[in-house]
C-alpha cells in the first residue's frame, strides 16, 4: 500500500532498497551515508530483505564485492560518500568498463584535505569521467524516486551502465521530509525482473570477465562502453515518463522553474535548487524576469535539451557545488557553456562556485546572483566570469 512516511534522505534510499530487494548489498560506513546501510542492516535482520548484506573492510572492497556479485548476474547496490567514493575510484572504472548495472546511493560530501564531513559535490564530480550515470536529487522524494528509476536505467539492455544517485550530505541525507512511499508490489512491478545476459556462475556457458585487452581491441571495447551511456538519454526519458504514469511524478533531464518568459536564469543542482526557487519568487515580485533550471541528469549530459532551454536567455549563472582547480570554470558551467557554443544567439554565461564543505547558501545569495544577471542583461557586459558565492576573500 502506498503511504506517506516521514523519512530523511538516507532512509528513503534504504526504503527504496528494501522495495527493490537487490541480490547483494555491500557497503562500508562513512558519514553522512552510514544510516543508509544501518537501515538496510536492520531490514535484513528483520527479514524484510532477502538479498545478501555484506560489511567489507573498506569502500574499495565494497565496490569490489558489488562488481563480483554483478558479474555473477546479481542485482546490486551500495552507498557511500566522499572519501569512500574516492577509495572506490579504481573499481568505479571497472564497474563501468565491464558494463555492470550497479546502483550507488551517494550522500554527496566534500573531499579531504582539509577534513570536512559536510555536503558538496566534489565526490561525484571527481568521478564524472568514470563512466557512471549521474542523477541528482533536490529533496528526499526525488532521492527515493531517482533511486528506483536508477535500476531500470542501469539494467536496460541498451545501457548496462552503473548509476550514481546523489543526495546532498546532511542537507538531504539527514533532513526529514514527508515522502510518498509507493506500494512494494508496484515498485517491484515497475523495476521488473533483472535478466543478466552474460554472467559468471552459469556453468553451461562459461565466460571470463576482465581479461587483458591491449592495442588490439581495447579501443573498440571502450567505444562500445561509451555507446552504452550514449544510449542512456532515451532510456532515462522513457523511464521518467513511465514513472510519472505509474506513480504520478514524471521526471525529465532537468526541471524548469518559471522559465517560460524568463530573460535570465540560474542553473543549480540538488538541494540548493529549493532555496533558489524561493529567491526566484522574490526576484519576480521585484519585477525581474528570472527563472531557474535544475539539472537532474549530469551524465550523460543532456547538452542539446539544455541548450534549447537556455539559448533565449540574455544571461545565465551556473552554480557549481564543486570546483575544478585550474579549469576554465567548474564542471556544470563548462558543460553548459560548451553546449551553447553553436548557437548564433546565446546568453552570457557566468559561473559561481558555492557551498564547498557545506557552506550555507541562502536566498540572499541567490538574489545577489539575480542582481548580477540583471546587470549583465542590461549592459551586455560580464565583469567577472568565474567567481565564488558566500566566501570570505580578504
Amino acid at each position, binding site marked *: 500500500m502506498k503511504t506517506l512516511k516521514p523519512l530523511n534522505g538516507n532512509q528513503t534510499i534504504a526504503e527504496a532498497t528494501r522495495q527493490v530487494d537487490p541480490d547483494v548489498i555491500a557497503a562500508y560506513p562513512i558519514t553522512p551515508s552510514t544510516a543508509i546501510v544501518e537501515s538496510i*542492516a*536492520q531490514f535484513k535482520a528483520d527479514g524484510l530483505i532477502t538479498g545478501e548484506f555484506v*560489511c567489507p573492510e573498506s569502500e574499495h572492497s565494497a565496490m569490489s564485492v558489488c562488481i563480483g556479485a554483478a558479474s555473477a548476474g546479481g542485482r546490486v547496490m551500495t552507498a557511500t560518500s566522499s572519501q569512500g567514493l574516492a577509495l572506490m575510484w579504481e573499481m568505479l572504472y571497472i564497474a563501468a568498463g565491464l558494463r555492470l548495472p550497479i546502483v550507488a546511493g551517494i550522500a554527496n560530501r566534500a573531499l579531504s584535505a582539509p577534513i570536512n564531513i559536510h555536503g558538496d559535490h566534489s565526490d561525484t564530480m571527481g568521478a564524472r569521467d568514470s563512466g557512471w550515470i549521474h542523477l541528482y536529487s533536490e529533496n528526499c522524494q526525488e532521492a527515493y524516486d531517482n533511486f528506483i528509476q536508477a535500476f531500470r536505467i542501469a539494467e536496460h539492455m541498451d545501457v548496462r551502465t552503473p548509476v550514481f544517485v546523489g543526495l546532498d550530505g546532511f542537507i538531504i541525507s539527514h533532513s526529514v521530509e514527508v515522502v510518498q512511499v509507493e506500494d512494494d508490489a508496484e515498485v517491484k512491478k515497475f523495476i521488473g525482473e533483472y535478466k543478466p545476459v552474460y554472467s559468471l556462475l552459469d556453468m553451461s556457458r562459461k565466460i571470463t570477465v576482465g581479461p587483458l585487452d591491449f592495442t588490439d581491441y581495447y579501443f573498440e571495447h571502450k567505444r562500445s562502453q561509451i555507446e552504452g551511456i550514449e544510449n542512456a538519454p532515451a532510456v532515462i526519458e522513457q523511464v521518467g515518463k513511465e514513472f510519472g504514469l505509474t506513480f504520478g511524478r514524471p521526471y525529465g533531464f532537468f526541471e524548469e522553474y518559471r522559465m517560460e518568459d524568463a530573460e535570465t536564469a540560474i542553473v543549480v543542482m540538488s538541494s540548493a535548487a529549493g532555496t533558489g526557487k524561493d529567491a526566484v519568487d522574490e526576484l519576480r515580485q521585484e519585477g525581474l524576469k528570472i527563472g531557474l533550471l535544475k539539472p537532474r541528469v549530469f551524465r550523460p549530459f543532456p547538452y542539446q535539451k539544455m541548450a534549447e532551454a537556455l539559448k533565449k536567455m540574455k544571461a545565465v549563472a551556473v552554480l557549481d557545488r564543486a570546483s575544478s582547480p585550474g579549469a576554465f570554470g567548474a564542471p556544470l558551467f563548462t558543460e553548459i557553456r560548451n553546449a551553447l557554443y553553436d548557437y548564433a544567439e546565446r546568453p552570457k554565461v557566468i559561473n559561481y562556485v558555492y557551498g564547498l564543505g557545506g557552506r550555507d547558501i541562502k536566498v540572499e545569495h541567490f538574489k545577489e546572483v539575480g542582481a548580477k544577471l540583471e546587470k549583465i542583461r542590461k549592459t551586455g557586459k560580464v565583469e567577472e566570469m568565474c567567481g565564488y558565492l558566500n566566501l570570505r576573500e580578504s
Partner: protein
Amino acid sequence: MSKDVKAQEAKNPMEDFLRMDRIPHIWCSGCGIGVVVTSFVDALRKSEIDLNKVAIVSGIGCTGRVAGYVKLDSFHSTHGRAIPFATGLKLGNPEMQVVVFSGDGDIAGIGGNHFVHAARRNMDILVICVNNFNYAMTGGQVAATSPINANLSTAPYGNFEYPFSLPYLADACGATYVARWTCLHIRRVTMSIQEAFQKKGFRFIEVIAPCVTLYARRNRLGDGLNLLKYYHDNSEIRHGADTRTLDIGYQGKMIVGKFVDREKPPFLECMNTHMKKALGDKYVPYGE
C-alpha cells in the same frame, strides 16, 4: 570574574601537551580514549623525550582525533592510512620517534593491509591502537575486532564474523614489541609506552577501551564504570602468553600483558646492511 574564582581555576595538568584551543574534545563521557592519551602524555614526560623529535599520526575515527589534540608535530591522515603516512615521515626523518595513534577500525579494518606490511618489514614506528570493538565515529557498525555475538548497528542481531586478535596478528607479522592492556591499567599502559619508546622496530600496543555511547549502549553493558569493572574482573595479566591464546569473546576473559619483546633490525638497518654488502663503498648509508 572575581579574584577568588580565578584562583580556583586550575590549569589543566596536560595543558603543555594539548592544543587547548581545540579543547573541549569530542569524546563522550565514559569514553576510554582520553585515558590512553593521558597515559601517552605521561609516558612522554617520564621518558624525557625531546618533544621536537616526536611526531604523531592518526587516521579517521574517534581515536583519529588524537593527532588534532596533542601539541606535537601531528598529522590527521585519511581513513586507514596512518601507518603509510607514518612510514613516510619516519623515512623522511629517521631521527624522529614516530607514533601512530588510531582506532581498531582504522588500523585493523580499512588499514589492515598496511598494519600487516609495516610489521613485516619491521618499520621503526610505535602503533598505539585503541580498540573499542566497533566503528564508533560513524555510529557503532560491526568492525574487524567486534566479538562474536556483540550487537552492532550493522549486525542488529549480533556479529557472526570471526574477529582479529590484534596481538596475535602483530606477532605473526614480526612485530618487535607487542602488548595489550585495558583502560583500567593506566600505569601499565604508561609503562608499556615508555618501554616501547626505548625499542626499535615495529612496536604495537593495543588498549581495550569502552565505547559507552554505542557499543555499551547497544549491548546494554552499562556506563563507563560498569565497563571498567568488567575489565577489572575479567582481565588477567599474563606476560609472555602465547599470542595464539588471546582471542576476546563477547564479555569474556581478556588476557593482557606484554607478549612479545624481541630484537630484530628495523627496516632502515636491514636496507643499509644489505646495500652495503651489495654495493660496498659505493653505498652511502641512509639515516644512520
